[in-house]
């Protein structure tokens, strides 16, 4: 038995057993699988289920993708992911399926997507015993300072924030550009100055 598991934006919409030789997919009601999706053509694709299972683009406007690559016609293997418009079809072949092996029903990592250029950020000690040293901010959280006073820089996506630190042994909170930080996260910009535990640091973004 072979099946298709149909998902839209990560939510499973239905499961379709491939019990006949040709199963059509499209927006029109005449199809076996009807997708209410403006990016899907009237008749968009067909699954051909014989000894093996194939997927074929029926000259659709937006085409179909198999595991992230645009294709015209291909044989399917267990676990393959076919993208039709904004819908995804996971092909499950129970004959092959090893009951124990976990399969993820989700879009694969987009291999052709241009990889984001990672932003490199660091803080350089401008005043204090370790003047001139740099700390590279390559983790989600980086601690600055010592037991007497601490600050944490948080990385969120491509931005860096000085996290609010309240209460406890701190007494005074660290300073950003000469002002004590309050209860809000502060977005850091290039050349911002941070004062913590008697040390001054400069935030640096390398483009």
């Amino acid at each position, binding site marked *: 038995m072979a099946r298709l598991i149909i998902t839209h934006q*990560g939510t499973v919409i239905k499961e379709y057993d491939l019990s006949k030789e040709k199963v059509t997919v499209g927006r029109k009601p005449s199809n076996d699988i009807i997708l209410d999706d403006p990016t899907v053509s009237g008749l968009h694709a067909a699954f051909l289920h014989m000894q093996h299972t194939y997927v074929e683009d029926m000259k659709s406007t937006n085409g179909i993708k198999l595991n992230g690559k645009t294709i015209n016609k291909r044989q399917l293997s267990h676990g393959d992911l076919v993208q039709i418009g904004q819908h995804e079809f996971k092909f499950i072949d129970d004959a092959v399926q090893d009951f124990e092996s976990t399969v*993820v*029903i*989700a879009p694969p990592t987009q291999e052709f997507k241009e990889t984001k250029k990672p932003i490199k950020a660091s803080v350089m000690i401008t005043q204090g015993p370790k003047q001139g040293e740099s700390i590279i901010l390559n983790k*989600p959280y980086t*601690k600055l300072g010592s037991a007497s006073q601490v600050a*944490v820089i948080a990385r*969120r996506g491509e931005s860096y924030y000085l996290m609010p630190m309240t209460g*406890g042994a701190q007494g005074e909170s660290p300073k950003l550009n000469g002002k004590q930080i309050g209860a809000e996260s502060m977005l850091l910009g290039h050349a911002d100055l941070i004062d913590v535990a008697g040390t001054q640091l400069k935030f640096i973004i390398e483009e």
Partner: protein
Amino acid sequence: MTKNKTPQLEIHGLTDEGLVRDHNEDYISWVAKSGLVILADGMGGHNAGEVASELAVTCITDALEEVLSPDIKDTCEMDFEEVVHEAVVYANDEINLHSKTHPECTGMGTTVVMALFHSDSVILANVGDSRIYRFRKGELQQVTSDHSLVQEMIDNGYMSEDEAQNSTNRNLITRALGIAEEVKVDVARHAIEKDDIYLLCSDGLSDMVTDDLIFSSLVKTRQNLERGAEDLVALAKDHGGHDNVSVILVACK
């Protein structure tokens, strides 16, 4: 003198290949002094599954290491739910990066469940179908929700819990770390009580053994968590042991 904000915990964990698999793709770790407990169940061809699960656990541990140092954890008020969320997102980024730069690891992924005990609460996070149960006052409750096809079908009313138990679709998960650039992480904070026991487990336990049997095991072994972990792993193997099985038990003292 500041108060130690990590509650007093007793932690025991165990991971086992099971009876069928020839290698273990699960990975478990904990840092008792920080109140941090993590379990991951990897997947992917060749040996990539264990690469993914180990990366998940080590990245989360690394990401949290500095913010969980006593000078911060015990003295500062922070949004630990966000901190945990960001640590899991970081692990997802690192696993993706590793897949891209190591062709033999393409397609690998992993589930993750974690618990961070802080003050009078625990912050739980999960992605995939590994689980956290809480045993409190003679009751066992699953406190995470599986990201699996079966669970979605139950949630949408297509399937009953009983039907789910026998479904052949139990191995299909809807979320994992390392399979896409974006990941949706469930994060929740729960109040803890003295004598609570938290069980983190991979599906090697929960697919083999019913909740009732897990409950009976904990009733029997709750005074001795080391034996408790051994008992749960033995239970999974007695009921087939088809998959790797991992458990971590945490008791709040």
